């Protein structure tokens, strides 16, 4: 009998912890696992609006979105942040968002505003680029590859590690860059040649960067890795002992980088529409936008936001990033990934 009582007790405890009335209003924000922000910035919003913010981390970008879609009839949160341009159409098709034409959109360049109905509002962007290990190329007297085509040269045999686009968002970004560059009919031939040139594929960014990449603490075998254009800055900021220069850098050739834009939107069914709108404004406003680079290692979209010194010095954005229409990505993504898998893995 005791055990039954305990179960009943625990269940009651859960109910009460879930349903207990709160003195202040809470606003819940659902995000992917990579979301981060400064304590001071978040506290400023909480105090100004007399609200408590609760963040729910829900897996990687794809997983978080799927959870938001599955729970759309009884949403878990008021605001959802973290859909990127590769997933944007899935989010819009599922109709999870409440449109909101924030006045702050005026400060955001039109190239980022990919949803004309303002259900999903751009917050930040980043470039998925190939990083290289400076020391390797210096000590082997090798020139840095400058284009996607260069990677097929015999001197770069077995030097590149990429992530599987079926399981990794940088992996998908790089695949999309090659599709933009070589076209939907030409990219598979390129990947076939990459494979013949000793391409290494792993499932996730962590493995690629920390196990295979020679420029990281894992000091692996490949001096070329698909990562972000901001990774060299992170190598300096999170160095184990102070560095004056980054041990890595990005290759910024034509279409070698894929531009990823991340969006925020208000979830349909929110009971705090007014506050949710304020929070979206807050995310697009200068204070939060300037906090983004050093917290999430991506770039703010608001033109008024200035970049931290480390970003200006060590991180570069692509001059000619590859971009694709989200609707085209959504329509073809599964087929592209399946064809890539058949070509590269089997």
């Amino acid at each position: 009998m005791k055990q039954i009582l305990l179960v009943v007790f625990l269940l009651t405890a859960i109910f009460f912890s879930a349903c207990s009335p709160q003195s202040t209003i809470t606003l819940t924000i659902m995000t992917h696992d990579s979301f981060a922000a400064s304590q001071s910035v978040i506290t400023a919003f909480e105090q100004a609006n007399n609200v408590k913010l609760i963040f729910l981390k829900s897996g990687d970008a794809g997983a978080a979105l799927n959870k938001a879609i599955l729970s759309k009839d009884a949403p878990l949160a008021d605001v959802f942040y973290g859909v990127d341009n590769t997933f944007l159409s899935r989010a819009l098709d599922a109709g999870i968002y409440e449109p909101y034409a924030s006045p702050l959109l005026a400060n955001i360049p039109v190239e980022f505003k990919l949803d004309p109905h303002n259900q999903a509002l751009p917050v930040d962007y980043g470039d998925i680029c190939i990083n290289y290990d400076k020391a390797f190329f210096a000590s082997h007297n090798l020139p840095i590859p400058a284009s996607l085509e260069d990677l097929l040269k015999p001197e770069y045999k077995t030097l590149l590690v990429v992530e599987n686009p079926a399981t990794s968002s940088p992996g998908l970004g790089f695949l999309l860059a090659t599709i933009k560059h070589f076209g939907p009919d030409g990219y598979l031939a390129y990947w076939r040649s990459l494979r013949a040139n000793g391409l290494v594929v792993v499932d996730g960014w962590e493995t690629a960067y920390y196990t295979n990449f020679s420029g990281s603490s894992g000091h692996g075998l490949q001096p070329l890795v698909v990562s972000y254009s901001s990774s060299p800055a992170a190598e300096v900021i999170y160095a184990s002992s102070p560095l004056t220069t980054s041990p890595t850098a990005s290759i910024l050739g034509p279409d070698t980088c894929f531009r990823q834009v991340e969006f925020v939107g208000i979830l349909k069914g929110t009971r705090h529409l007014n506050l949710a709108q304020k929070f979206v404004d807050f995310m697009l406003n200068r204070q939060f936008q300037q906090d983004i680079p050093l917290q999430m290692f991506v770039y703010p979209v608001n033109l008024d936001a200035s970049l931290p010194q480390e970003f200006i010095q060590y991180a570069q954005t692509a001059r000619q990033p590859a971009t694709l229409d989200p609707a085209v990505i959504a329509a073809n993504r599964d087929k592209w990934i399946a064809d890539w898998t058949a070509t590269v893995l089997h």
Partner: protein
Amino acid sequence: MSIYHEDEQAIKTTKLGGFLSSWFKPVLPWLGASVFLGLFFFYPLARILWLGLNPAALNTIDLASLLLAIRSLLFTFYQAALSTILTLVIGLPAAILFARYNFRGKSFLRVLTAIPFMLPTVVVAAGFNALLGPRGWINLGLMDLYHLQSAPISIVGTLGIILLAHVFYNTTIVIRLVGNAISHLDPRLEQAASTLGADPPRVLNRVTLPLLRPSILAATVLVFIFDFTSFGVILLLGGPGFSTLEVEIYKQAMQIFNLPLAGLLSLIQLLCTLAFSILYSRIVIRTAATSAPRAAATNLRSARTGRQKLFLSGMVVLLLGLFLLPLVSLPLASVTRLAADRGERGPVQYGITTDYYSELFINRSDSIFFVPPFEAVGNSLGYAGLTVVLSLVLGFPVASALAHPSHLGRFLDPLLMLPLGASAVTLGLGFIITFNRPPLAFVTSPLLVPLAHTLIALPFVIRSLQPALASIPDRLRQAAASLGASSYRVWFAVDWPIVARATLSAAVFAFTISLGEFGASSLVVRPEYPTLPIAIARFLSQPGGMNYGQAMAMATVLMVVCGIGILLIERLRLPGAGEF
């Protein structure tokens, strides 16, 4: 009239009460676990499977999907069977070693074999890579020794490392379940067989193995199911060339959002698990044998003959090689620093540092999600403690009921194993659509974490307790009762001393499962209460030597906390537990 009527009512009530109690009594031990599993496992799972597999959605499954499902299923079987055989090959002699021999450093080695069980795969992958990777110690050593140009061993990204990692993770299951049974064998049975003229193989075949069969089978099935549902090992060490059902479910559900196919794959995985569990309970019921269990200490001895010494030292070296070498690279990496200016480095240079540990306490970037290490340890221990209590409270009555064969038990037994075989990804999505509205709106509650851990720990707890409880011959209880002991006293004087040790073993399982479980990918988590594995993953999600070092430092903290936890639980002197 009215009085008469009332009397009839009273008689009816008593009859009803009698009926209820006769019906209720066999059901009672199952009540807690059934309600728990029903609410937190079967209900959400049924809802998400129905969402993917309703007749309308099923039409979207085409031939290519079916081929994919068959291919994943075949590979999943293949690697799980190989892994299980290898785990038994290492685990059974290791179980004999721990159950039969006294030697120096035994408790250290025992804890060492249990630590992998709770380490997150990212950390294990880092450990294996430091040892066996292209620039791992073994390869560097061999290259140095034989003046080779390239690494002679390339095991990362092959089936070999998947098998090795599975053995590394799961050997402790065999050591604990089978070792526990061996240590309680009555040596007089084997001695009697020898006296009657049986040679050692015959003693093993006719006496020892039949007595050990339930525990060996239990361990085999648990190891097999764990290998069958393998996810992190395949993704991080095997790489994209390999795909088990669980990996494919993750891709379909989380990336492609093909719920029908993900549902189909989950169902296949679930049905396979059910089939294994049914097979297991059939065999166990058919072959269960009881004998008066002996105190564990009476079976312990030191190695005397040359062969025994050879066995002992050989096993110790093997286990140290298998467990210590991959693990030791983590604490080493947590205190070494790469040469300062890697941009212009020649050969990699190292220095010793404690920076990674001191940095754990500093919130340098003022992040709202910063958690000091002691708080992460506290969260992890809190969740683990709740998991231990909850799974023991729910598991004990079930294991006692299972110890006495009954129709109800035979029917419910295989269902208890299902949470081990269910896809974590699918169940996580089931939680989302089930617990997102009142009256069950607790998908965002931090308490969901220990509840989910209990789902996985419960089968282990039951499988640890049940063989011990079943091994108690009824005549011992009858003897105690006929000497005038009350039923409570019978339990405390007969059952408890025998199962106390198994209870500790069950507690260790629940504790390690909870500490190492990495539920972040399948549950919605409140980032303000992260566990140690989640804290480690956060560091590894950004570039930079400091992040890598802090992840290794946090992993070392996790290993130490878990090691101390296991040691403490195993050294508990339970009242009345005696020598068992």
